[in-house]
């Protein structure tokens, strides 16, 4: 996984503002006006990002491998 870059997006329409991602992975997500937003659009590969993306109750967090474009979360 080392060296990989991932893109992180939040679908703010779908987000229900549970605060799960921002509370669990504050280095990557923050709540703005009650909805989540990634702090950075691109990050070094990190299990923490994948973990919370998989746990989002409405699957609003989209993580992709920048090089290949492959969708890493949510699981399709």
């Amino acid at each position, binding site marked *: 996984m080392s060296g990989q870059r991932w893109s992180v997006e939040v679908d703010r329409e779908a987000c229900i503002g549970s605060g*799960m991602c*921002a*509370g669990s*992975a504050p280095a990557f997500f923050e709540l703005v006006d009650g909805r989540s937003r990634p702090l950075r659009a691109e990050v070094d590969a990190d299990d923490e990002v994948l973990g919370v993306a998989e746990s*989002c109750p409405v*699957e609003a967090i989209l993580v992709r491998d920048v090089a290949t474009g492959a969708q890493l979360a949510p*699981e399709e």
Partner: protein
Amino acid sequence: MTEATTDGQPLPYPFGDGRQIDLEQRYAELRDTPGLVKVQLPYGRDCWLATRYEDARTVLGDPRFSRAAAVGPDVPRPNPEQPGDGGILMLDPPEHTRIRGVASRAFTARRVEEMRERTRALVERLVDEMVGHGAPADLVAHVALPLPVLVICEMLGVPFADRDDFQRWSSAFLSTTLLPPETVVEYGGALRDYMSELVEQRRAEPADDLISAMLRASDEQGRITRDELVTLAIGILVAGHETTATQLPNFVYVLDRERDQWDLLRERPDLVPRAVEELVRWVPLGVSSAFPRYAKEDVEVGGVLVRAGEPVLAAIGSANRDERVFPDADRVDVLRESNPHIGFGHGPHHCLGAQLARMELQEGLRALVTRLPDLRVAVADDELDWKSGMFVRGFRELPVTW
């Protein structure tokens, strides 16, 4: 001003015994009092209480607060037993994220939506059976309890036939003072043995259920140990039925009292999802705020400096009545549009079953307003059979007519 902020003496807490649906009046005063208040629960040390929406969200969602630190005899709590170890509500990220991730995909909005049709058919059948029994009938026994128990049994892969046993044992986790501590230990152990055995059965013979899926995460991916799996499955089984089973009768009771709101739903069942959000906001399900968060460093909350190592409780029921966020907050308004309530919590521990509970409550309420539009509570207020000595407020039985 309350005495708590002037003489430093903690207020005895909770503010009532929960034998009423209305939020205890004390919270409204506290929301308008600057700072946080110190309270004393029946067991453990004194504790800060956050009653405003913004402050409650900070306590629940800010990573400077920890649940894992809430261990030992000092932890403020409404029940005599010391907090046990291992439950998902006792963990901090990243362990929490790892464990929760093993189950969370089964609880996404998308997966829950796939269960809606079957749940609808199930509720219809339960309502038919209640009608067949004839009025008055107990809404809890006929509809509100079997609904979530059937759903969670099917989802997890727990035999519905065992419900009398596991419901009795579950009460160990739902009791504050209802059960003596020896019984809590005994029932907790019995439920653990039961679940361990079930998990072993699934390992020998996997099925299309959540226990089997979690076993794959355990055996194939090593994401979770067998012990953690059993604990998680118990947590889901316990949290997955009592809450919904208590809330649906609470909703019916509130809508019976606010009859214009029931009538609105009768005419416009399409409002049911909004009504469910409004009622989850309005009904203060917890008798007492529970599960304090410990500050990992000094944190300012509501104008008070909470020192590292101090516990704070978030009063969810009170936060949901904060006028700063919900205009006319004490009114039940099924037309309310913006409703960012925290009835399912907030932050890392935001209810795992929130989407499932929403769906169950929506289908339950929809079936009742459409099939039994003249549904009424059949007993006077002073004859209501309130639960007591439990974490949640609601009815042991709720006789209804239609």
